[in-house]
């Protein structure tokens, strides 16, 4: 299955109520697969091609306001268009799932894989103090698994969740284990589970209001404090990462998504040469596994951040490490994927040799 197709199938099986999107390479297969699978016949899920990315994110706002499981997907330029709507969703505390299959930028860029949307994804992206829960899959299986997980986290924290994939994983074909079909929630179940959902006022119950507009600054500050408290709770509970051969490592790679797949090969090559190299792969990019990196910094001599961009995650690593060890960056940009040899060479040159 292609990574994009895995996301589409996962959405149907996770009991998603609606997909609204606009085609863009390299994620067009998500909608193509959904259209071909006819989920409106399988589960009653709505699939709609909106007139633009801006329209699709606002459809999400409406769907999520009703407590429905809704999702959209796009690639870099499309995500930029959606930022306003995403900020509104975060402001109104609406859970929804976004998928970004990143391509090279800036501007229209290329259609080849890149990881240059890291900042946009983990720092908020739109206006105002908000964060997205960001999951970074490194395999087609994870593309599948992170859809139900993304919905779970989004509804748990009432915040948009983002799957930050890239063109390589989206287009890659791998074997995938599929889960059983989860039934969609009925309106009664939604009312019971999510009392904030706006599904029509019930007699004897308070009116639910979905809004991100608070004209009084005192009220707005209270909302902001509430949001921040929610984000701190999320940071405390939801950090996910994978540590590969870090126990005895002298040097470690820090990489997410498809870069981490390249690093796994580089570790093998390095270990064959007698270099003790490990890999730390953040699975949640926000909340970032800062504490783990901080602890690791005490035991290793240096860290090299491998990203398909000009150095974005490296800043978060430096913040986490607080100068306890050397942190450098290596990356290729514009849709070029670094080779395992190149990555190992960079490690030897920048971290091991560069003292």
């Amino acid at each position, binding site marked *: 299955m*292609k990574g994009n197709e895995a996301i589409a199938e996962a959405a149907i099986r996770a009991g998603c109520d609606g997909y609204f999107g606009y085609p863009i*390479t*390299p994620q*067009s297969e998500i909608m193509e697969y959904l259209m071909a699978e006819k989920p409106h016949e399988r589960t009653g899920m709505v699939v709609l091609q909106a007139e633009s990315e801006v329209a699709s994110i606002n459809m999400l706002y409406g769907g999520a306001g009703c407590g429905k499981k809704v999702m959209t997907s796009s690639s870099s330029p499309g995500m930029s268009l959606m930022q306003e709507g995403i900020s509104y969703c975060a402001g109104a505390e609406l859970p929804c799932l976004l998928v970004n299959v990143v391509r090279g930028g800036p501007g229209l860029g290329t*259609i080849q894989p890149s990881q240059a949307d890291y900042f946009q994804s983990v720092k908020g992206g739109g206006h105002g103090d908000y964060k997205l829960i960001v999951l970074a899959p490194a395999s087609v299986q994870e593309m599948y698994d992170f859809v139900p997980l993304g919905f779970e986290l989004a509804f748990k924290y009432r915040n948009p969740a983002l799957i930050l994939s890239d063109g390589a994983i989206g*287009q*890659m*074909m791998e074997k995938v284990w599929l889960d059983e079909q989860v039934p969609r929630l009925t309106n009664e179940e939604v009312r019971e589970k999510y009392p904030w959902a706006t599904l029509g006022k019930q007699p004897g119950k308070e009116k639910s209001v979905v809004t991100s507009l608070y004209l009084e600054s005192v009220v707005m500050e209270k909302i902001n404090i509430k949001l921040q408290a929610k984000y701190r709770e999320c940071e405390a509970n939801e950090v996910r990462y994978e540590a590969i051969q870090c126990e005895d490592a002298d040097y470690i790679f820090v990489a997410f998504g498809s870069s981490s797949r390249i690093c796994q090969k580089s570790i093998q090559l390095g270990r064959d040469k007698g270099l003790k190299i490990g890999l730390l792969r953040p699975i949640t990019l926000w909340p970032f596994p800062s504490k783990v990196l901080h602890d690791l910094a005490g035991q290793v001599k240096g860290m090299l951040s491998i990203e398909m961009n000009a150095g974005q995650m490296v800043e978060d690593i430096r913040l986490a490490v607080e100068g306890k060890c050397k942190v450098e960056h290596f990356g290729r940009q514009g849709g070029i994927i670094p080779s395992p040899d190149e990555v190992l060479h960079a490690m030897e040159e920048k971290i091991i040799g560069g003292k």
Partner: protein
Amino acid sequence: MAKVKGSIVIDIEHCKGCEVCIPVCPESVIALAKQVNGKGYRYAQPINDNCTGCTNCAVVCPDGVISVYRVKVTE
């Protein structure tokens, strides 16, 4: 003696230009086109008729877009 001659047909709209087929062809038949398909990828295309019908390209293609045809040519 009967000789086998091959020919490939590529479904260009489903090709993503990953170039996996190019190094596996013993006769260097395949190259990426200068043009792009509907999704914007440069697609694979045959550039000469040295194809022997070995099917290496069709076996490695992750998207199964290459069909190989073989004909026996008697001289």
